[in-house]
C-alpha cells in the first residue's frame, strides 16, 4: 500500500515538473518573440519621401503647364468619381455585366 502511495506521489511530482517546464519554455519563447518584435525598427513612409519617379516639385514649371496640370487633375478626379459610380452596382450585386458597364466619358490626356 505504501509502495503504491510513494509511486503515485513520485508520478505526480514528475508530471507536475514536466508541465511546469513546458509552461516556462512556452513563456520564454513568447517573451523572446515579443522582444524581437519590439526591437524591429518601425518603417514609416511619408508622402514627401516617396522615391524615384515621384520626383521633387519643379519650381521652374511655366504657369500654363501648371494650369494644364490642374485641369488634368480635375479630369482625373472626375473620371474616378464616374468610375466609382459605375462600380457601385458591382459592389452591391457583383456580376460581369455590372463590372463592365460602359463609362459615359473616357479619360484621355489629349
Amino acid at each position, binding site marked *: 500500500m505504501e509502495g503504491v502511495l510513494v509511486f503515485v506521489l513520485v508520478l505526480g511530482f514528475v508530471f507536475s515538473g514536466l508541465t511546469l517546464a513546458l509552461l516556462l519554455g512556452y513563456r520564454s519563447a513568447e517573451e523572446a518573440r515579443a522582444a524581437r518584435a519590439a526591437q524591429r525598427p518601425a518603417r514609416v513612409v511619408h508622402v*514627401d519621401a516617396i522615391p524615384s519617379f515621384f520626383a521633387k516639385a519643379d519650381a521652374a514649371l511655366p504657369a500654363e503647364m501648371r494650369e494644364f496640370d490642374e485641369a488634368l487633375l480635375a479630369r482625373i478626379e472626375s473620371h474616378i468619381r464616374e468610375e466609382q459610380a459605375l462600380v457601385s452596382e458591382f459592389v452591391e450585386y457583383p456580376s460581369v455585366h455590372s463590372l463592365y458597364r460602359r463609362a459615359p466619358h*473616357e479619360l484621355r490626356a489629349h
Partner: protein
Amino acid sequence: MSPAELPRAEQVLGRADLFRDLARDDVRDVLAIGRARPLDAGQYLFLLGDNADEFFVVLAGRLDLCLPITLHGTVKDVRVESVGVGQALGWSALVRPYRFTLSARATEPSEVIAFARVDLQDLFESEPAIRFAFLTRVSEVVGTRLVTFQALWVRELQRAVESEARRTVGETAEGPG
C-alpha cells in the same frame, strides 16, 4: 469627450452605419473614449504612410481621402473618396501593419471624433458585444473599399488590354510597308 459635446455626438453617431447595431448605452461607452478634434479647411488629418494609432468618425464637415499622383515631377493628391457626417475613416488603425494607406484632408471646416486603438482594444476586452458589432461594421467598410478598388483596377486593366489590341490591329492593317 466632454459632457457638453456628448449629446450632439450621440445624435450623429446613433444614426451612423458603424454604430447601428449598438444599444444606446453601448454608443455612450464608445463615445466616452472618443476625443473631438476640429480641422480647418485643407488641413490634413493623416498622411499616407503615417502611423495609424487612431480611428475616426466624422462629426461635422467633410474629408477627402487622397492618393498621390505625380504630374511633371510634382506630387499631387487625387481625391479617391469623400466621407461626410457619420462616416468612418482610418480603419488602418485597427489592422496591421497600422499604417495609413491614403491621406485624409478636410475639404471644409470639419470635426472628427478620434478613437485611440489602445482605448478601443481595452473597451473590446471588457465588452465583447461592442467588439463584435463594431468590428462587423468596420469589416463592411474595409470590404466595400476592397471590392471598389478591385473593380476600378480591373476596369483599367481591361481598358489597357483593349487599347493594346486596337494598337496591334492598327499596326497589322498598316502592314510592313
